């Protein structure tokens, strides 16, 4: 289980710097280093087990349905990488302590750094595919934070975004690939997957899987053509480059190749894709590196080319090549990290990284210079240094492949060429920076860095030398176990020694060194040749493309989303028409036509409706007229309800009609009396007419079909149980207050909310009040004619009586709370119309309508909750018959209480709407209420 601690400790470690930020820099750095250091100890403690050939594992179940487990396992490869990550990580922590200036937020920096370390450890230790991806993406995220550490600099932001975009894209591809692998193998456990290589290679999806996985690896390891993000990631503080862009993050890609070598490699496709990509990257990187004036730029491109070298090795499909690749991973990590640190020191002490300015530093910082030169030599592959050994193995392996058939000889030749360029840029690094005259106008006078800032470099260069001279003794065992887990098979014979005698690889090395020297010697002509090509800045290109895409999509979107309601409504109707109309094409309209003959009454009604509706449309710009026509239709509809034996509906429709028309008339007082000339082009009018007609005919057809077909519905139940179960003979009303009382409750809620919403709308609305009507006649001064006021006043009690009557009979005869409520409301409104708002306000100031609404709703709910006390569900009704002298037998039903609630809500809501609207006509305004 202690394996869990290895990633867990650094994870906790991310918090440490945040808490110790206030401390002195050294203290902060030390505190930060502690937990990773312990983790390193743990790994070292486990190393012997791994060297013995078995692996340490630990796992917990996490999200089974995703195949995601918290599973780690430490094998050779994992060991190698965790040593790199933790070891170099610690050195970087030390280095950064001196690198960051006093005013920079070191705490934040360290915490990002450790977060990245955790993520990286997670990647290399994962024993679960999804978890591997989890940490993989985490490295992208944390590296984004690190690169954009100096977020106020534009190039930092852009570089970070670009890195994130490219690696993020790769990450998505990787996820898809991993999920496919998991699906093919039927398990997401890495160890299982690694043992089912043939299964995957034979699967039809293998090319897809390979493509996706390689996309992930190549983007992360900055392989051509995805290499361009890496140089721009150099906007990060140098410790970050030393850590991420030499030793760890960019190695995640090649780690992926190594990790899945057993399942993906050994096919022609793999060879072609990986080898060629690697080769291209090797050459492109090495070539461009020669021309970079920026120290870090040179190193970045050399990193790209070395990563290409490693990729190429994995591509060669031979066991020895794979071993060489692993070996070069180690070596490159070591010398490149030290070079970056050296570059950082130079930058730090000179204030510049431009190799055209910083020359002859040998005099100023001899020790750093020596270290840097050794590291650079190793990069060039000079004997006695670790770089030489793996380069040698590489050359040897390029000779061993034959998949390219007759063209196979190209690979070693190009490899040598790449080697030559490597030598060239290494030479340039050494010669330009440390010799080649005097420094030209640089901000600071350079000198040796603080003692301990150099320590990490010394350590790394020391390793370069040791490995270079005693390879088998130093890294032999590590390399063996690592390669063992890469190949997932017994190792072939191979010897780690300096001298293999005079052979072709040696010749190639010599050729490379000599050629490199020649190249550098003729650099001027080389530069001249290169200067003929325009320099493209990937950052600018990337950024501009993004901007272009955004503007393009903006234009496109504006075409679709033009902010015209009429278009949106049209689309909605059209959509509905399609959905509802299509099925009707197969409808046989004649089926079971149970038709009844029409009589004159129906026909007249129909004609009236037809006239009314069409007139409404035609005169819709003369709003008052249209409104009258509309109300005519409404009246006929209610008559129709009455005719087709729905008295309740008729009553309701009629009373609603009255209120609505009053409301619309009131509103019209504030709105233009006439619709301004409709500017919609005639083509649209035709379009709308036709679609409206179509919808109409669809609806009509459905309606006809429904009318003419027999229907066995649940409704007989209501008729049977209305009296016995609901205690009322008016079935419709019983349904409303009992069977489906809950609907009614919702309905009055809607009414109440609408009233509140309308109050919201009215409050703070400022409308100028027209003093003249459309024909420019001033409104009558005498707003409230005498007769009307007298009549209405005398009518009030009567109408209240009527509404009470309607209310009471509701349960058994047409009527009920809703209609009663509307009648009351109308009566009250009449008062407003007759006497004016002010007059009413004086009298009904005490009444607060939203209060009435609330009380109504409350009563309704209460009548429902009441049933809980009898252990019945919500809204269960209760009724019984009583007999009193005089009155005789009468019924009491809980439904009546509910209906009372309805009544109050309706009154309250209607009054709120109309009375407050009327209030606008006065000079006093509504004030906000809460």
């Amino acid at each position: 289980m202690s394996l869990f601690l290895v990633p867990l400790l650094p994870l906790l470690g991310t918090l440490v710097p945040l808490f110790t930020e206030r401390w002195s820099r050294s203290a902060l750095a030390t505190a930060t280093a502690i937990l990773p250091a312990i983790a390193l100890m743990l790994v070292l403690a486990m190393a012997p087990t791994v060297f013995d050939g078995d692996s340490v594992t630990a796992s917990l179940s996490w999200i089974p349905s995703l195949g995601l487990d918290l599973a780690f396992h430490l094998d050779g490869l994992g060991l190698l990488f965790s040593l790199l990550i933790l070891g170099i990580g610690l050195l970087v922590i030390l280095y950064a302590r001196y690198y960051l200036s006093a005013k920079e937020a070191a705490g934040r920096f360290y915490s990002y750094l450790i977060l990245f370390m955790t993520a990286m450890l997670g990647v290399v230790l994962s024993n679960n595919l999804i978890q591997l991806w989890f940490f993989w993406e985490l490295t992208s995220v944390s590296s984004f934070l690190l690169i954009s550490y100096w977020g106020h600099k534009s190039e930092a932001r852009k570089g970070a975004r670009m890195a994130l975009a490219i690696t993020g894209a790769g990450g998505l591809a990787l996820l898809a690939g991993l999920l496919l692998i998991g699906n093919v193998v039927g398990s997401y456990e890495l160890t299982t997957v690694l043992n089912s290589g043939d299964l995957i290679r034979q699967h039809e999806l293998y090319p897809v899987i390979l493509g996706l996985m390689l996309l992930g690896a190549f983007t992360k390891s900055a392989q051509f053509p995805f290499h361009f993000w890496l140089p721009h990631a150099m906007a990060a503080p140098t410790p970050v480059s030393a850590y991420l862009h030499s030793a760890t993050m960019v190695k995640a890609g090649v780690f992926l190749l190594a990790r899945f070598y057993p399942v993906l490699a050994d096919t022609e496709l793999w060879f072609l894709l990986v080898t060629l990509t690697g080769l291209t990257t090797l050459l492109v990187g090495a070539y461009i590196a020669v021309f970079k004036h920026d120290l870090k730029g040179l190193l970045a491109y050399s990193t790209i080319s070395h990563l290409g070298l490693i990729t190429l090795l994995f591509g060669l499909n031979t066991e020895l090549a794979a071993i060489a690749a692993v070996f070069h991973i180690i070596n490159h990590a070591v010398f490149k990290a030290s070079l970056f640190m050296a570059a950082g020191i130079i930058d730090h002490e000179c204030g510049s990284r431009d190799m055209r300015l910083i020359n002859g530093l040998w005099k100023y910082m001899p020790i750093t210079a020596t270290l840097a030169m050794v590291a650079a030599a190793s990069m060039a592959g000079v004997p006695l240094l670790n770089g030489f050994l793996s380069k040698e193995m590489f050359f040897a392996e390029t000779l061993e492949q034959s998949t390219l058939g007759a063209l196979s000889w190209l690979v070693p030749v190009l490899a040598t060429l790449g080697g030559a360029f490597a030598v060239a840029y290494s030479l340039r690094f050494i010669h330009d920076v440390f010799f080649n005259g005097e420094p030209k106008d640089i901000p600071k006078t350079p000198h040796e860095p603080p003692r301990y800032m150099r320590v990490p470099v010394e350590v790394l260069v020391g390793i370069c030398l040791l490995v270079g001279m005693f390879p088998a003794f130093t890294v032999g065992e590590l390399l063996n176990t690592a390669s063992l887990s890469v190949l997932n098979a017994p190792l072939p014979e191979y010897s780690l020694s300096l001298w293999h005698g005079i052979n072709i690889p040696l010749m190639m090395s010599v050729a490379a060194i000599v050629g490199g020297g020649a190249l550098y010697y003729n650099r001027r002509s080389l530069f001249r040749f290169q200067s003929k090509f325009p320099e493209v800045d990937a950052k600018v290109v990337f950024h501009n493309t993004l901007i272009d895409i955004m503007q393009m999509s903006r234009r496109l979107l504006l075409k679709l989303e033009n902010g015209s309601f009429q278009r949106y409504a049209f689309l909605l109707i059209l959509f509905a028409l399609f959905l509802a109309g299509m099925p009707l094409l197969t409808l046989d309209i004649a089926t079971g036509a149970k038709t009844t003959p029409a009589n004159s009454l129906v026909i007249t009604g129909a004609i009236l409706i037809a006239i009314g509706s069409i007139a409404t449309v035609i005169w819709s710009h003369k709003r008052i007229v249209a409104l009258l026509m509309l109300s005519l239709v409404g009246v006929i509809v209610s008559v129709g309800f009455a005719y087709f034996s729905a008295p309740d509906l008729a009553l309701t429709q009629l009373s609603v009609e009255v209120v609505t028309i009053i409301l619309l008339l009131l509103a019209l007082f504030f709105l233009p009396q006439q619709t301004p000339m409709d500017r919609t082009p005639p083509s649209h009018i035709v379009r709308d007419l036709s679609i409206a007609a179509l919808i109409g005919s669809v609806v009509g057809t459905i309606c006809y079909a429904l009318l003419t077909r027999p229907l066995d519905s649940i409704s007989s139940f209501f008729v049977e149980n209305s009296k016995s179960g609901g205690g009322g003979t008016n079935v419709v009303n019983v349904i409303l207050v009992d069977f489906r009382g809950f609907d009614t409750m919702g309905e009055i809620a809607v009414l109440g909310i609408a009233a509140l919403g309308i109050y919201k709308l009215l409050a703070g609305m400022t409308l100028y009040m027209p003093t003249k009507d459309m024909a420019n006649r001033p409104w009558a001064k005498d707003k409230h004619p005498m007769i009307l006021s007298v009549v209405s006043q005398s009518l009030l009690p009567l109408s209240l009586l009527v509404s009470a009557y309607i209310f009471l009979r509701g349960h058994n005869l047409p009527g009920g709370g809703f209609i009663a409520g509307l009648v009351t409301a109308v009566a009250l409104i009449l008062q407003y119309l007759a006497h004016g708002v002010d007059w009413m306000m004086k009298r009904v100031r005490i009444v607060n309508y939203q209060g009435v609404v609330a009380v109504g709703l409350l009563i309704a709910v209460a009548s429902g909750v009441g049933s809980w006390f009898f252990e019945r569900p919500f809204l269960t009704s209760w009724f019984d018959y009583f007999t009193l002298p005089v009155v005789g037998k009468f019924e009491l039903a809980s439904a009546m209480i509910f209906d009372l609630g309805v009544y109050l809500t309706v009154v309250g809501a209607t009054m709120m709407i109309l009375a407050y609207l009327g209030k606008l006509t006065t000079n006093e305004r509504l004030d906000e209420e809460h």
Partner: protein
Amino acid sequence: MNLLNHLPVLPVLIPFISAILLLLPPLRGQLGRQRIAVIIAHLLSIGTTVWLLLTVQSDGIQVYALGNWQAPFGIAFIADLMAVMIVLLTGVLALAAHLYACAGDDVKGSFFHPIFMFQVMGINGAFLTGDAFNMFVFFEILLIASYALMIHGGGKQRTQANLHYVFLNLIGSTLFLFALGTLYGTLGTLNFVDMARAVSDVSPENLPLVKAGGLLLLAIFGLKAALLPLHFWLPRTYSAATPAVAALFAVMTKVGIYSIWRIHGVIFGVNAGELANMAQPWLWPLAFMTLALGCLGILASQGLRTLVANLIIVSVGTLLMAVAFNTEQTTAAALYYLIHSTLVGGALFLIAGVIVEMRGKAEDRFVTARKMANPAFIGICFFIAALAVIGMPPFSGFVGKALLLKSTVAEDHVAWFWSGLLIAGLISLVTLARAGTTLFWRDQGTPSPAEPVAIQKKAAIALLLLCFPLLVVFGGPITEMTEQAANQLYHGIQLPMGVNNEY
């Protein structure tokens, strides 16, 4: 009386009653009291919902016959795991949004608190009801409440956006009634379970009618869910609304999606005989195009709120594609994704609200502006939410996305779904990276004077953000639950609906 017998209806009644009480003394007009009251109300309903969730998990689907009239004659609430989980989600989101509003947005107009409660009531009812017409009623409740909330705070933009929103939805409601009439006229019943039965043996000559009615419903739900081409109202409405309201609206689109699940996934699902999966051929391409257009919108947005609104469209497209698959495991995955995307949408709207306050005239537009006073807190919040919405580890987005991918790996047209999902992820990654770096780093001049973020707002945002790590850490049990929920959805209950069918 034992409240536990009435659990299914409480998530509706608690907001309802509290809304009413807010309109009456002693709460009426007392802002301080109201704020406390609403928070208590939310906590109460969350509590009951959790209890209900546990009940459903232990003894299966809970059916509540309102008025004690057995279905199909009376209205029945069907509290199955999916409904209850989404109600719980609504509860949490509403709590956070309301808390945020209590920092002062609630005084910018009348009756904010009661209407907000009505809104929650409507949403919960729509999720819990098992009756088609009752669903219509609850749709209207949540709509009218949303109309009223939409214009809270006033201003040209809001009125403007509201006009479109209201009138489009009014058309929608009309269509809804047409659809219901058609379905009742052919099936003769309104209860979902009974409808499912009736659909399976509908007479052949009535098939076209049923199909017409059923498909018409797709238009209404599509309008709510912002399915292309009915989504045009969304970006303006959501970006214009007050932050708290916009955050709550994040769940409104899910009402539409959920209804499509219930109606077209189950009633017209595999057991619908002739009409099995009739909506799928429509849903597939439209959902994909919705996703595509959402991506276009993301790229086109010039302000954070618009960007978030378009992100919501993307999530809708994703979900509807998953719905179109209509398989049990995809539904389970989609349910997880739905929960995640709703929360992250809400969180982002709240964050955007704070950013607008802090950036002065520049508001949330992606332009160089004055430095923010103290961007640390909101910056971190934005970063977390962004990772979550993109679907990057370590937050819940990646689980949702990976679950969706994994659950469809064996389906046909999976290539479309996968590429759509992954590319959308990439696009949001690029745009959000740009948005974030611009909003927080591309600044000049002296810091803009801004009073520190109110504690309620911080708490609200923190509450939502907390969900993302939790959704990951407890991913195991949660996904188990979503799978159970999907199973219940498809192998639900038969009539007569005894209280708990054995599951």
